[in-house]
């Protein structure tokens, strides 16, 4: 048993940290203030990341690389692969700025969806695209089985009708992966995902939202009005398979939940590290010397937060490790997301308070992180949705029994 990060992944972590320090941090406040302005600084970075992944025989990292490793028949030893690399790299990037990390070209959640469920032909065709993900609707968020956007087969096309909201990078991406139902009366088994190219007639970018945090990342509303999508753009199995049900589309989330957890780890760590630096000036050293109750109240607060963050980190790495080794990790992925989301939010808020007015004003990034972190406990499944998933797994209950 070993719970240390392998040396072979250290260069990747270091590189990501350099990007976070040299590219993200200097422009972090700029794009927080200039919401909806395109961070052109990231174009260069995206090319570098593409190049790194192309040349990496080890599987690479990033949204477009996430896949559950197939369990091979023979025992070929433990793997620390793409899922772990992605989680570690992204933690560093989000230590720099989570909003910017969310808007790196060609690293969208749609790319993760394509990687998870697309066939070989589709993988090839959408290679190099920037794909966002459109699930939520005005009347359906967490309850994704209740989406009302329809996709009706018409010859060689599906005709999409509906409205999608909260699309991260929806304004900037080339392709939007849209969840729509083939038959609203057939329940979740009829929900399929479609890769829709920008510029397809009938697809309209309606607005970009103004937000509490992660303002460097655009959040779009897009409508589909008789939007004809080639049938080859349906990702995964086109049949309504009641048995497989939601499995296909939901599989994306088993892969991306640890990724969102990793984002939370980055923001939480940024806040905690900066707070420790600032408190050092006030004589709060935090050397793990006194017992929790023998420490000052500020120190004890730091220790509790650090323990929570460390727990979230290990849960996240565990979930990624399981994915790398072909072990089903739905429960663990949700545990990681739930713990990391709430820990990061709590940490950023408490750090702001510990630093008093220094934490609350815009001279420091603490107040920004405190706004950014809230999103991480919401998207890719809210805290409450994660608890539902975990509880169902632990209790052996169906979604009909535990609703």
């Amino acid at each position, binding site marked *: *048993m*070993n*719970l*240390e*990060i*392998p*040396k*072979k992944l250290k260069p990747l972590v270091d590189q990501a940290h350099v990007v976070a320090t040299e590219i993200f941090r200097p422009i972090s406040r700029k794009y927080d203030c200039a919401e909806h302005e395109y961070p052109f600084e990231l174009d260069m970075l995206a090319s570098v990341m593409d190049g790194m992944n192309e040349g990496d025989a080890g599987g690479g990292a990033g949204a477009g690389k996430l896949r559950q490793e197939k369990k091979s028949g023979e025992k070929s*030893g*433990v*793997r*620390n692969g793409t899922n*772990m690399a992605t989680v570690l790299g992204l933690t560093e990037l989000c230590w720099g700025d989570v909003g910017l990390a969310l808007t790196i070209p060609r690293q969208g959640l749609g790319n993760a969806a394509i990687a998870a469920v697309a066939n070989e032909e589709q993988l090839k065709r959408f290679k190099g695209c920037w794909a966002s993900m459109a699930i939520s609707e005005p009347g359906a968020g967490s309850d994704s089985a209740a989406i009302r956007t329809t996709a009706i087969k018409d010859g060689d096309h599906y005709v999409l009708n509906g409205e999608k909201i909260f699309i991260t990078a929806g304004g900037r991406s080339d392709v939007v992966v849209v969840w729509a139902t083939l038959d609203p009366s057939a329940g979740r088994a009829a929900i399929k995902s479609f890769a829709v190219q920008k510029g397809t007639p009938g697809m309209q970018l309606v607005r970009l939202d103004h937000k509490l945090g992660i303002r460097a990342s655009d959040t779009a509303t897009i409508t589909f009005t008789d939007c004809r999508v080639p049938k080859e753009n349906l990702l995964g199995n086109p049949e309504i398979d009641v048995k497989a049900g939601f499995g296909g589309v939901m599989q994306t989330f088993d892969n991306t939940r640890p990724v969102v957890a990793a984002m939370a780890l980055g923001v939480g760590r940024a806040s905690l590290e900066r707070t420790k630096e600032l408190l050092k000036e006030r004589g709060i050293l935090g050397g*793990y*010397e*006194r*017992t*929790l*109750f*023998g420490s000052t109240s500020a120190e004890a607060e730091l*220790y*509790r937060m*650090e*323990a*929570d963050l*460390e*727990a*979230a980190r*290990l*849960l996240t*790495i*565990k979930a990624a*490790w399981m994915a790398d080794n072909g072990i089903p990790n739905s*429960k*663990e992925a949700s*545990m990681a997301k*739930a*713990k990391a989301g709430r820990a990061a939010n709590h940490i950023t808020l408490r750090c702001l308070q510990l630093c008093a007015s220094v934490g609350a004003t815009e001279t420091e990034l603490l107040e920004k992180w405190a706004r950014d972190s809230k999103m991480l406990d919401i998207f890719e499944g809210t805290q*409450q949705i*994660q*608890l*539902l998933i*975990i*509880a*169902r797994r*632990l*209790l*052996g*209950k169906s979604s009909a*029994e*535990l*609703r």
Partner: protein
Amino acid sequence: MSKNPMAASLSMLNRFSGSPLVQKLGIYKSAQKVAHVAVREGFRAGAMVARQWNQAQKLIRPERLATAKNPTDLFDLNVTEEQQMIRDTAQRFAREVLRPAAYAADAACAVPEGFEAQLAELGLASFAVPEALGGAANEASVVTGALVAEDLAHGDVGLALAALAPIGVANALVRWGSADQQAKYLPAFAEGTPPRAAIAIAEPRPLFDPNELRTRATMDGDGFLLKGEKSLVPLAESADLLLIAASLVGKGPRIFIVERGTPGVKVSADPALGARAAGLGRIVLEDVRLPSHAILGEGVDVCDFTELVDLSRIGLCALAVGAAQGVLDYTIQYCNDRKAFGEPISNRQAVAFMIANIGIELESMRLLTQRAASRAEQGLPFHREAYLARVLCMEKGMEIGTNGVQLLGGHGFIKEHPVERWYRDLMALSVMEGGLLL
């Protein structure tokens, strides 16, 4: 030492695998596998010595266990085959011996009759003692220790503590003991009935901090004079051997080896709310005179007190993980069975989310504990990790304990169900220092 290591080894294993307990528990298959591994690794059984602390052999230098090397450098939560075998055995023992005995042992503040004989048959203590001293250990196994502590505590915290406290003393002697101390005390731990022993750190006062010991040792001729008071000491009344933490004037914290019957040592039962089966007691030291060789370790090998406290805390965390797992398993079953308003109460989010949170925080506790253990085992610095594990296990152990009782409502409050015991056990563990050591 035995003249024929293989023969001695087989004889020792035969004792293990042929014992009625092993047969009864249905762990014969595991026993066979242990036998296979042990013979393959060629472990040797030592000469049997009577429990009288006579030094039966001479060591030229102390026997230290090698730090474990992680062969691949990869993050890996898998346990080895050997660890799995040991876990299987520990889990069955916990399920079939500890859990059924827990209720009575808690009430009696003592281990049940015959407990030590049953324990001895498992031979866990011999895995702490180096081969050269008659045991079966060849490298440090803090992770294995943590896994076993968790598994036994899942049966019962108090009994697990009673079982592991002596092993903790053996671990400390292996880690820091001088050649003479090891030769004198360690062989007994690999014998049929290991001595009763425990590590005493905690002192009876609010805001206790192990870095501010009030038990003091002063130089007295060529020996030491010990004064002070210790609390929450497992097996206190019956211990053959105690490792007592005291502040050596002018030097800082040290560990002193105190044998049963040393004049000035007064021991009394001091039951706490939890871990009662471990026979917790208080020890008063009134001008206890100790010889110079009673200080644990010598020269540069003098006991590293911070490390000792940390290894002990990892052990306490592992026990808390086992108890918390007990709470989770029990509340899942109870809330699925218990009906209210026409359906199982676990169909309600208010109940189900509490269970989900127990699951999350339990896994958090486990991972922090295991990381600290694995760093310790590999010889990496682990003070920060042990500290954070302690903080988390203290906070979340308390939360899980109280929510366990809450989930059973009134039924959680009565002794028909074990959740009230875990509630108490988790609280006792959260304030304990010492007791055991991985």
